[in-house]
């Protein structure tokens, strides 16, 4: 634990040194950024959150004084290996396509007896205010590290959600005429210095999806996929969708389906 912390601190210091060197020649910028990411990956603060999530998973909590160990994320109660990589999926008990976060919240409500408003109030962390959901999702995600993303969306409800996600991906509106496709529909583009994945291809969607949840250095926090996509909407100058909204689960289904086959590398670390 202490070692991990030291690694983290060192990693951040090295990263800080590297980012200072970025203002080099343009042709070197991409290389520098790659080095920066490499340096960061050596001490991912998300590792600490993963440990916290593991403890939360096993701890008896809530009005029913129960752990989450019987939570069924799609592969059976308590089966965590590879569970993240096969979400979102259709669940017969709720008759809904659910992503890792909506399913986790479902388990916290049904198994532990929490109220949904209660457990989702702190769905993302703020400085000084940690989020249990972030920790749990980081832990669940890490259990799919090395597993291929597998969301074929063969169930009719999953097919429908993937198509709804596709619709939202191309939908343009707002004072900048944005859609997801504007930035993420072509190969090899950059916004400022940030490389953009073409999320309509398996390679691009795979690159994007395999590293979530991810520690965001610029934010000083681990972001879940819900957080990531809700922030995309903010960047597009739209209102923010509700946490766990179907529109976000639909986008996730579309992206995971496109990324299917890509091996997970999570928790990730990003700018």
């Amino acid at each position: 634990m202490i070692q991990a912390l030291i690694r983290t601190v060192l990693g951040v210091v090295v990263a800080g040194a590297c980012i200072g060197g970025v203002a080099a020649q343009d042709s070197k910028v991409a290389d520098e950024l790659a080095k920066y990411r490499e340096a960061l990956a050596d001490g991912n603060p998300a590792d600490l959150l993963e440990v916290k999530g593991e403890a939360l998973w096993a701890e008896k909590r809530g009005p029913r004084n129960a752990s989450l160990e019987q939570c069924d994320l799609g592969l059976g109660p308590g089966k965590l290996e590879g569970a993240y990589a096969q979400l979102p999926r259709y669940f017969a008990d709720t008759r809904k396509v659910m992503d890792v976060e909506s399913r986790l919240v479902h388990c916290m409500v049904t198994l532990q007896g929490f109220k949904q408003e209660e457990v989702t109030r702190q769905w993302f962390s703020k400085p000084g205010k940690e989020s249990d959901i972030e920790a749990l999702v980081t832990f669940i995600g890490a259990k799919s590290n090395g597993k291929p993303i597998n969301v074929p969306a063969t169930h009719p409800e999953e097919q429908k959600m993937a198509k709804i996600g596709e619709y939202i991906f191309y939908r343009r509106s707002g004072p900048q005429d944005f859609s997801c496709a504007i930035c993420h529909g072509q190969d090899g583009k950059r916004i400022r210095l940030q490389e953009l994945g073409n999320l309509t291809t398996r390679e691009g969607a795979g690159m994007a999806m395999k590293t979530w949840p991810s520690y965001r250095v610029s934010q000083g926090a681990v972001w879940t996929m819900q957080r990531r996509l809700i922030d995309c909407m903010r960047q597009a100058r739209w209102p923010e969708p509700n946490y766990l909204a179907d529109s976000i689960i639909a986008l996730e289904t579309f992206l995971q389906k496109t990324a299917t086959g890509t091996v997970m590398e999570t928790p990730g670390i990003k700018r």
Partner: protein
Amino acid sequence: MKPRYALFGALAAIIAASSLAQTKPVEPPGGKYAKEAEQVFRSSFRVDNPKYWMSRLEQDETMRLCAQYRDNPPRKIGTQLEKANLATIRYPVEGKLIGEWKEGEKLAAVGTGGHIGFIQPDPPGRLRGGNCYACHQLAQKEVAYGTIGPSLQHYGKTRGNSDEIVKYTYDKIYNSNAFTACTNMPRFGLHSWLTPEQITHIVAFLLDPESPVNKD
């Protein structure tokens, strides 16, 4: 039928078939679920959102058709959209289309403004810029430029600053879709994201020989 005509007929049929194959329409995103998808999208926002936030979800004809054709509309529809967008362009009251390049330089670099929502909104009145560097290379000294749009380095140097070029540049920033329907570029003037005066400053940044876009 004479063999010559038969051959001609067969060729014509092949050409017709192949061009038919080329213009075979791409399925609109969402397919048969498009209507339901619109409902899902709209119902995913908080009900206590201010009305003006929700107005940002509205689509005009251009947005709707561009999405439907995945930003690659058939030429006939593209031409219609370009005509309709051209008609929206308004000019500064004094009619001068070239402003101050130094003002334009600032606006080109600003990427903030206009964010709404409960998590990380911009404070009211925060300067909204053109955010040109997000997508375009401009002044040589700025290396943090994006590549979604073409490089505009030496824009004025290579094009000159004839009245036609000045007007085209202003018009393109005001309403990019007047020239290329469904382009990635926002319609800065149409949405009042930038004022006509601010657009003239960016025109100057692009065209003034003293601007770092052209000088360096």
